[in-house]
């Protein structure tokens, strides 16, 4: 694939992430923060997000797997995940977390289990997509190209 084509497909791919609602404008914020002094900022933040979220999801699975669910433990985790997903613009994870928190408040164990599955699903989706995105970017950088600027106005 030549460079221009790769750049084009990266742009299209990024766009598709926004169109599918997987990402929102907050992700653009991250991209704006990435500059020469901090060229890997986005992937750093996102990697941190992945690590953090993996841990949280693990904890959540454990907490919800208990005989008696301690919602005081569950809720902060969900809050945490909601905060970080909102920070990186993982919109669908964030939305799933909002629903999750509502059921936490209601102490609805069954619904919480469902929500956890939903959150996981959304999380793996965004993880997968972002990893692909970074791979594409790496390919472009490797072939000496520039990461095309994200267009405003999404």
């Amino acid at each position, binding site marked *: 694939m030549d460079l221009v084509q790769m750049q084009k497909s990266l742009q299209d791919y990024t766009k598709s992430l926004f169109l599918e609602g997987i990402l929102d404008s907050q992700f653009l*914020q991250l991209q*704006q*923060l990435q500059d020469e002094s901090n060229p890997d900022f986005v992937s*750093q*933040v996102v990697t*941190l997000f992945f690590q*953090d979220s993996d841990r949280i999801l693990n904890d959540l699975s454990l907490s919800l797997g208990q005989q008696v669910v301690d919602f005081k433990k569950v809720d902060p985790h969900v*809050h945490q995940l909601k905060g970080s997903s909102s920070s990186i613009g993982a919109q669908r994870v964030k939305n799933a977390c909002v629903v999750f928190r509502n059921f936490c408040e209601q102490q609805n164990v069954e619904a919480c289990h469902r929500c956890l599955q939903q959150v996981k699903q959304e999380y793996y989706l965004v993880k997968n997509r972002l990893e692909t995105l970074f791979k594409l970017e790496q390919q472009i950088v490797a072939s000496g190209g520039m990461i095309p*600027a994200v267009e*405003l106005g999404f």
Partner: protein
Amino acid sequence: MVCEMETDQIEEMDVEVLSSMWPEDVGTEADKQFNVEKPAGDLDTLKEVTIEETPTIADLTRLPDLLNSTHQGTSQLTNLVKQWEYMQDNAVRLLREELKNLNRQREEAEAKELKIIEDYKFESNEPENLPVLDETSDLFRKFRQKKRDALVDSKKIEIDEEFDTVAYWKQKALSLEKMLKASTERERRLVEKLHESLKTMESHAAPVQELTQNLKRAEGFLHFILQNAPIVMGHQDKDLRYLFIYNKYPSLREQDILGKTDVEIFHGGGVKESEDFKREVLEKGKASKREITFTTDLFGSKTFLIYVEPVYNKAGEKIGINYMGMEVTDQVVKREKMAKLREDNAVRKAMESELNKTIHITEETMRAKQMLATMSHEIRSPLSGVVGMAEILSTTKLDKEQRQLLNVMISSGDLVLQLINDILDLSKVESGVMKLEATKFRPREVVKHVLQTAAASLKKSLTLEGNITDDVPIEVVGDVLRIRQILTNLISNAIKFTHDGHVGIKLQVISEPSFASDNSLNADAEVDNNLTETSVWIRCDIYDTGIGIPENALPCLFKKYMQASADHARKYGGTGLGLAICKQLVELMGGQLTVTSRVNEGSTFTFILPYKVATSDDYSDDQDEFSDMTDHQSEPDDTTEGYFQFKPLLGSIYSNGGPVIGNGFLPHKVMLTTSPIKLINGFVADPSNNTGQSEIVQVENGGYVDETKLETSSGHCPESAHQYENGNGRCFSKESESCSSSQASSEGGTLEMESELTVSSQREEEKAETNLKESSKPKILLVEDNKINIMVAKSMMKQLGHTMDIANNGVEAINAINRSSYDLVLMDVCMPVLDGLKATRLIRSYEESGNWNAAIEAGVDKEILENEQVCVRSTNRLPIIAMTANTLAESSEECYANGMDSFISKPVTLQKLRECLQQYLH
């Protein structure tokens, strides 16, 4: 038409000789279908045939006439005659052959007879009384010959008897009888043969029947072809009167048609055209086709394909036309549909390519804009450094020329900064990134400040005035920063183009304008604001008595980079972005910016904006700087004062001399708009008090003075002093709101050097503190437990040129605040250990009481706090900004209730951070 068919037949088949012949089954309906006159039989073969086949068929007085009188008719008849003749000839030929045969036989017989006679000469006198039938007929002669032969034979046989004896006669009689029998037999055979011959002759000799058969076939063919043909055929005479018509789907009776013209029969569209067409064909004598759409009462709108050919008589004169029509309405509709589809297709394609082009252009534009914005951003950071350094440089000892050069350098730098800020503003608005803040402010204050600012930098003898009607609320809610930006822009514009007279601002409440109802932006703004105030529309006029704007320049006035004319650009300078930004900002806030102007008389820029009216009961002291200032305003009438005037103070300005003179007023504006520190500078530079030594006193007094009361160094403004104290350490103006203000700050810096005293002023201390000794940055504390959020916020701060300390929860935050002094705290609300709300309450309690008792009570590590207790902090109110994921009104009220100054909704964006910093870091 009929005739044409016939001739065709003749030409093509040569044997199918046709007359006008109609299918049998239509015969019963002939009255309707064949609108042909009844037969009046004076036409030989045709007549016979017609009558024989279809007694009911219409015809044929006219048709025969036609057939007789036209070429087609003639040729048809000729053909018939020819064929008949041919058959007759054939019969004659056969008969002749037969005759020849018979003659030959007779000759043979005669020759034989002669021979016999020669052989038996004696018999020649034999009496001729033998039975003789006929002497005229050759046949009989033959018989006689044969008889003679027989006679001769019998004579020859029975000669042995005595002549003329009884036996002789008996014998002769017997033989004669035998001969007679044989003769009779022969005769019978001959008669048979004759009959046979007659029969064959008969079969050949019936041309009429032959013709009839041919005609039947032709008729069958025609019937086959025509019975379902959806066509109309007809013949019209020279005057285009119908003589004959055939219509598969008749709608008129024959008597309604025959003898009439089209025009007489039908009414409506197309009739005239068809008539003209027929006439044209008749005149030109050339057959042709045409499609005509009829719109008649009789059968609605129908399209016919019409073929018309002229008809000539034998003499070659035109006697009328034949015409044939076929309805093609459906086909025409389909064809038109196709054409339309094709056309639509073409149009769509064109539009598509046009759209593609537009998209391409838009994309390019977007990219270019993005590029411009990025570049601007990139340029701004180093440029800020350059200007900042230049400002610092200006505080050092310089000679006059160096100072002059430095001034130019700083003002140019400021101009570029302003330009870049404008571009960034514009791109923000255009890309929809710009968000509006809803804060409470006092319109009178704003107008006053803007005018004061303008007056301070005024270099002309202009009167500035502000007029606010009484119905304008004391406090309204809106984005005061942006409104100030608009006002400042418009005022400086007005001043720029006004050489004498006055410039002013007028505020009045108006009823909701018509454009507002369909303005969604306005609606959005209202939704954003959770407060329940009623809305009010305020009209703001910025008028001047300047050079005015020619009418032809008005349309492009609000366009980017456009000025009324190139001359103006040269003469007055400026980026040409100001008005475009104003317009976009006004529209962003759901208002409208318009202009009226008369050349040499002045211009009036008017913007109408909706505001929320703040209710007094939810008034709190955490509002923006302006309300903050007015809170402590000592003059009670100031909040409701509706008229300000700033008169020119020219004399004093020019008394100063030197390179700094022109900017003598600038510092005032700075002081009034942004920080009280600069206020001090203002006084330092104030021409009315140009002895530096008196400044400190005024500073101590916190001299916050209206320009109107400038002469008296009024100290009745303790609020400024208060602010001055508070302003400690956070007065460095990050981003000046307008070109002139940033210019002012730099000029202020320059002026500072004028007297040693100013150097020792608070600002100088601050500068020394922040710029030279330590880092020039304000100290910011981020209290947040989410690592990712920290990372993002930190990075954003970095991009905004700040660093931050981090605390992971409320307890850490309290410890950090206890350890060192911060200029701003960004506080997450929801945190483990100690949440943001509680932490804020504790910090406020500390600010009030000067000790951390409340915090210790709340369980925060006692020792640490107690250790630090030694250093009693000033009672500065530390700005604490909540960062909350919940943007509901409840939550924001909770934040306020717990002593927070403002809140940023999560996720944090650059824009939100920047605005927050602009508001809280000075």
